[in-house]
Structure formats: structure tokens, C-alpha cells
């Protein structure tokens, strides 16, 4: 089936540094999402993106977070500066016109 790729699979950084998580969505999809999963907890919605704009963001999407998809390339999640509580697995997803979302394998972010 359609595949969403995420780069890198793991990222370890020091608190206060900037990090960019990259997502390569399915090529003809129109909607893009980021979710956050802390170990042992449920997946939680962060933000979604359509037509070059953020459509909705949750309370977890702090001011230090930003997303973009310049010129149809990677869909990125940037955190600047990072905090200890940002340690989690971040999943990217994309969907076509329908509601069905396809997820990437996740990026495990560890903030020291």
C-alpha cells in the first residue's frame, strides 16, 4: 500500500537545541498530520496541514513548534527550542480526499 517515510528514525538532542523532523508523504495526498505518542500512552493529534496552511492545532502544539511543506517537498515539524517533555515518538500521516490516513514509521525523539 501507500507508504509514508520519516527521516530520521531516531534523534537525540540536548535540551534547548532545534530539531527538524522530516516526513515524505504519499505523493498524491492532500492532507498532512503530525501526532505525538509518549511511551505507553495514546497517540495524540498535534497539527494538520492542507493547501499550505495549518488547519487545526492542539494544545500540545506549543509556540515552539512549526510545520511547513515548502514547494511540495518534505512535510516538516520543527521544534525550537526543545524541552525535556518533547521526548516522544512523532508520527507523520497523510491522507487523500477521503478520511483514511496513512502513517509513517515514526521518529523517536530523545531530548536530554
Amino acid at each position, binding site marked *: *500500500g501507500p507508504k*509514508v517515510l*520519516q527521516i530520521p528514525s531516531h534523534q537525540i538532542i540536548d535540551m534547548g537545541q532545534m530539531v527538524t523532523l522530516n516526513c515524505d508523504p504519499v505523493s498524491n495526498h492532500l*492532507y498532512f*498530520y503530525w*501526532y505525538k505518542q509518549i511511551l505507553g*500512552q*495514546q*497517540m*495524540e*493529534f498535534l497539527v*494538520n496541514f*492542507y493547501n499550505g496552511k495549518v*488547519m*487545526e492545532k*492542539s494544545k500540545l502544539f506549543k509556540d515552539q513548534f512549526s510545520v511547513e511543506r515548502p514547494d511540495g517537498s518534505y512535510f516538516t515539524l520543527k521544534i525550537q527550542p526543545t524541552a525535556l517533555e518533547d521526548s516522544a515518538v512523532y*508520527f507523520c*500521516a497523510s*491522507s487523500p480526499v477521503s*478520511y*483514511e*490516513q*496513512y*502513517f*509513517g*514509521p*515514526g521518529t523517536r525523539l530523545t531530548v536530554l
Partner: protein
Amino acid sequence: TQTVSQSDAHVTVFEGDSVELRCNYSYGGSIYLSWYIQHHGRGLQFLLKYYSGNPVVQGVNGFEAEFSKSDSSFHLRKASVHWSDSAVYFCAASPSITGNTRKLIFGLGTTLQVQP
């Protein structure tokens, strides 16, 4: 506020058994429901979805789910499980309303362990 609840954190069955994983949601209007499977250390894989029509929907690998508006439920079933079905199963919902941004609201997940 919409919520999705999965009442069983862990379910253990033997290979060849049938299984039902429970999912209930709280939302009064039209809703999109889906199930995902997550094998250890991997991303979520789509299993099946319901939006309208026949309340029993078929998914991959012999899974099916049944929507019940009266019970606000969307339980996942499989008639005969295989050891490779061992994974965490997530139920997810998205209210189907104008202007909805399609975010998925997930349950806490049910860990299915299939013993040989």
C-alpha cells in the same frame, strides 16, 4: 469533547481462537471510525474504516468491525487469530462535520497477545 475508549488494555488468546476488541466512542453526530494495528516499534497500519452504509465492514487479514449507533461502538473481530496478529490495536474516530479538519482521536489501545 469527543472521546474514544477501549475497555481492554490487554487481551490474550490462543492461536485459532476468535477475538473481539472493544471500542466505544462519545459523539452524537456522524462519525468516521477506523482501526489501526501497531506492531512493536513500528508505525500504524490501517485495518479498516466505517463512514456510512453497511455497519459491518471488512478489513485486511480477515478482520472485520461492526458499527452500532445505539451502543456507540465499533468493535473489531477476527474469527481465527494467528500468532502474527499479536500487536497493539488502536481504535480512532473523527467527527464527520463541516469544517472538521479530519484529526483522528485515538483510544488508549488494546494489546493483543496470541499464544501458540
